[in-house]
């Protein structure tokens, strides 16, 4: 089976949870051919992979959210400046802007029409007419020119994405809805025998919604317009998908709330290979006097590293043997990372170590617990990796952290401490509790390990996906064979 893996803003350009998941996922199906379609911001990072691509990846194709206006044809030229859409196309464009019964198939063909210039389309009369209609329907009290330019800027990246020539595949596997969902739907529309599988790690629409609500670059009614746009794209992906997976039950409920048919949804928790952590080196002699807290993360604002450092400073005063290890790349948001370094210096906090990107198996054994203070998460792999190494966790109440700590389907007890986001004191308290109570953290670590072995093993995940792939292959009448089937 040929699988087209569609990723947005992650694999193989950025290190992170979703990227690692994709990387290990592709390696888990070595006898399937994978084509990676990667949505990136622009051509500047073209080809700059941070992962060694697995043997079974045959192609990487880039899609840019910011680009210049290229005619669709390879050697083609733009058609005359003043071009008009036909009646069907106008209707489809209006349906997209209104967001009701969107005629995506007509739009897919329209955007890939030979000689079409996106500039002429967005600056053209038909787009203006459609905008006027939407404006009169819902937004008649806002400044028209702002409204028009906002709509143009919303649809420009979408149309750029829709110009992509999708590779032929048996299965289009998106790791999010959004733009990658649109590409997956385009693939299915182009090759009707194929299928679309969506594996959502976070809930894309909700994440964008949260970002937009906080954003300063967009104000008032335009926040809602942007949010609606992301909802439209997600609905398309849910409609065209055969199967939609989520990492935990609450995420599945959100998907259904956002318009996904319940019968398409499947919960497929993340999985970690416990054997990777079976014989990892333990504490070094120098570590003995410390209670090591390990944070495996990218030093970026979404991980809220500053709150973690502030909490550590507080906790350190009460429990001097604490030591914080920040393990992960600092180059994704160098400015933020620099601010974190300076914060540590300015506050004169001792025993904070930034290791940079490391192999977690070399360090995790030296830790006494792991920590995660993110303001947004799905189902963090780092918590599961900690569990695999018998380490408890302090985590903020985001994504599925609550489920991982307290258990959703078992009664083993707490495998760590759950705190509120950005709550410095609460996090500091948790650190102190863990630091002072060795037995408690060891018990929690064991609970975590049991929970992992019960539900979150890589084999469990592989088996689930194996079944999904096998079923989809069966439906499509294509061969699906893996020499080593998961137990």
């Amino acid at each position, binding site marked *: 089976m040929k699988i087209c893996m569609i990723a947005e803003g992650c694999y193989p350009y950025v290190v992170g949870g979703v990227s690692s998941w994709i990387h290990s996922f592709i390696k888990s199906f070595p006898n399937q051919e994978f084509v990676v379609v990667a949505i990136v911001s622009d051509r500047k990072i073209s080809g700059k992979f941070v992962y060694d691509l697995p043997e*079974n990846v045959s192609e990487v194709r880039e899609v840019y959210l910011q680009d210049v206006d290229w005619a669709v044809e390879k050697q083609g030229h733009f058609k005359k400046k003043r071009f008009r859409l036909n009646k069907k196309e106008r209707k489809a464009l209006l349906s997209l802007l209104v967001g009701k019964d969107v005629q995506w198939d007509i739009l897919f063909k329209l955007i890939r029409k030979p000689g079409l210039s996106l500039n002429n389309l967005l600056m053209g009369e038909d787009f203006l007419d459609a905008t006027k209609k939407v404006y009169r329907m819902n937004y008649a009290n806002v400044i*028209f020119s702002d409204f028009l330019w906002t709509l143009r800027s919303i649809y420009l990246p979408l149309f750029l994405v829709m110009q992509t020539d999708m590779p032929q595949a048996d299965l289009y596997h998106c790791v999010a809805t959004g733009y990658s969902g649109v590409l997956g739907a385009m693939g299915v529309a182009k090759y009707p025998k194929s299928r679309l599988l969506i594996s959502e790690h976070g809930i894309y629409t909700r994440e964008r919604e949260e970002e937009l609500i906080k954003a300063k670059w967009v104000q008032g009614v335009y926040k809602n317009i942007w949010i609606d746009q992301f909802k439209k794209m997600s609905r398309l992906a849910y409609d065209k998908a055969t199967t939609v997976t989520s990492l935990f039950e609450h995420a599945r409920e959100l998907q259904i709330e956002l318009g996904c048919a319940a019968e398409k949804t499947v919960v497929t928790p993340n999985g970690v290979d416990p054997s990777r952590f079976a014989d990892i080196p333990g504490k070094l002699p120098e570590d003995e006097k410390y209670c090591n807290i390990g944070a495996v993360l990218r030093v970026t604002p979404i991980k809220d590293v500053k709150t973690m450092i502030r909490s550590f400073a507080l906790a350190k005063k009460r429990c001097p043997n604490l030591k914080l290890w920040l393990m992960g790349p600092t180059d994704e948001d160098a400015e933020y990372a620099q601010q974190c370094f300076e914060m540590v210096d300015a506050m004169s906090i001792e025993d904070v170590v930034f290791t940079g990107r490391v192999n977690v198996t070399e360090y995790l054994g030296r830790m006494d617990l792991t920590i995660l203070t993110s303001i947004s998460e799905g189902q963090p792999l780092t918590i599961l990796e900690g569990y695999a190494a018998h380490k408890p966790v302090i985590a903020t109440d985001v994504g599925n952290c609550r489920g991982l700590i307290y258990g959703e389907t078992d009664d083993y007890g707490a495998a760590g401490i759950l705190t509120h986001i950005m709550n410095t004191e609460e996090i500091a308290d948790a650190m102190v509790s863990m630091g002072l109570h060795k037995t408690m953290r060891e018990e929690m670590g064991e609970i975590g390990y049991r929970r992992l072995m019960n539900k979150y093993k890589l084999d469990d995940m592989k088996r689930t996906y194996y079944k999904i792939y096998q079923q989809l292959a069966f439906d499509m009448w294509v061969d699906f064979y893996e020499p080593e089937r998961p137990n």
Partner: protein
Amino acid sequence: MSGIGVRLNKLYSKNTLVTTVAGVCYSTIVTIAPMVLVMVCIGVMQYFLGFNKESYASRELFSSTVLYIFIFSLLTASPFNSVISRYMSDVIFNETMDDIMPCFHVGLLLNVVLSSIVGLPVVIHEYIVGGVDFMYVFFSYAGYMSLMFVFYAMLYLSICKDYSKITIFYSIGMVVAFLLSWLLVKVFQFECTYGMLIGLTIGFFLTACLEMGQLKGYFKGNSRNYKGLLVYLGKYWQLIVANFGYTFGLYAHNFVFWFSDMQLVVVDTYIDAPIYDTASYMAMLTSISATVIFISNVEMRFHERYKDHSEMIIGGKLNDIIRARKRMFRQIAAEIMSIARIQFIISMVLFLVLIVVLPLIGVQGMVMTIYPSLAAAYFVIYILYCALIFLYYFNDLTGAVMTSVGFSVITVLGSIYCRDHLSPEYYGMGVFVGACIGWSIAFFRLRWVERNIERHIFCKGTIIKKGDGTRPQSIVYTKPVYLQNVNFKYSNAELQKYTAEEQR
């Protein structure tokens, strides 16, 4: 032109008959005063220097020379000056004043080259074939080039709203022209036409120098951006065509009748038709007040509506934009109706006065036969001009090209038909029909603009840069993949086939 508008608003604000007249007088002075000054100067020269005592040949040569100087300097100035005017507006808007002097130099070069291409063959022909004295030919050419300079520099001063300076410079130039010609004729015993021509030429040259000196005083910086204007010439080629088309149409009917049985050939070079030219000159004077009244009205009333609409476009709701647009176009209709009404009354009065007065001062016969139809034609031409100005306001250059080309082409064809097939009463019908057609095109185009103005405005510009060449490859990595042999009995597809068969 808003400079005039502000002063006019002040003048009109009391709204009495006296202030109304004062307003009209002021607009008259600043818009047509320069022309009037030159005409008055020539009239005074003729009166004081004994022009009528000159031989018929000398007088005709002088008249033809001055006629050609005026017509062709206006024609050669028309193509580039419209684009220069647009470029200057944008430069002033962008506050990049240092771009003005490079534009001035490039524009001057273009005007000199074009004027020379048109003028040199004529004067060489005049000298070689016509056998005219070299000095006379030289001053004819110098006068032509100087007047071109005057029109060119005047364009810059009028963009700077410095109308009073223009009038002062013209006055100085013409006073010097008269004094010099008087000196040459009366003291140095030059031939009258010689003296007049040299005086006029130096007068024009002095006016041009004064204007250019003023400009140099205004704009001292030089960004050396010589390309800017050339880019605009390519971008706004329609403006060149439209402006030249209209100016050409104004004189095209004269050119046609220069080749009729009214033709007069002077020194084997200058071809004209004094009877037709006099009639058209009088007809032009009958209706020229329309331009003045129109400019003042547009400045005062329409401009406000236009500004309101522009403000709505930037920061208004769609309904407010539509309301402002409707108000603006109602104003246009009102302006055109009012100009037609006022001009009709003025033209009728002037027409009746001229019909009575002109025969008394010796103008009669054929001139008076041709005059009525031409008076009607010029009436329509100036109303057409008003509509054309509105098209420029809305940046509808295609409409402006269609209007001016329609006007000039139909004028030429119509005039040829009238010349060959109709009696002298109807000689002006060609240009009349041409103007009517031009006006109709402009009218329907304005209606079109009214329907499409929002598209015109909102669909302009770019949201994404155009790619240079073909789209680069988006596949950044390829590698052949060798999968393990499918080493089991049946493939999935076969399995499904057999299952289906079994079920059957």
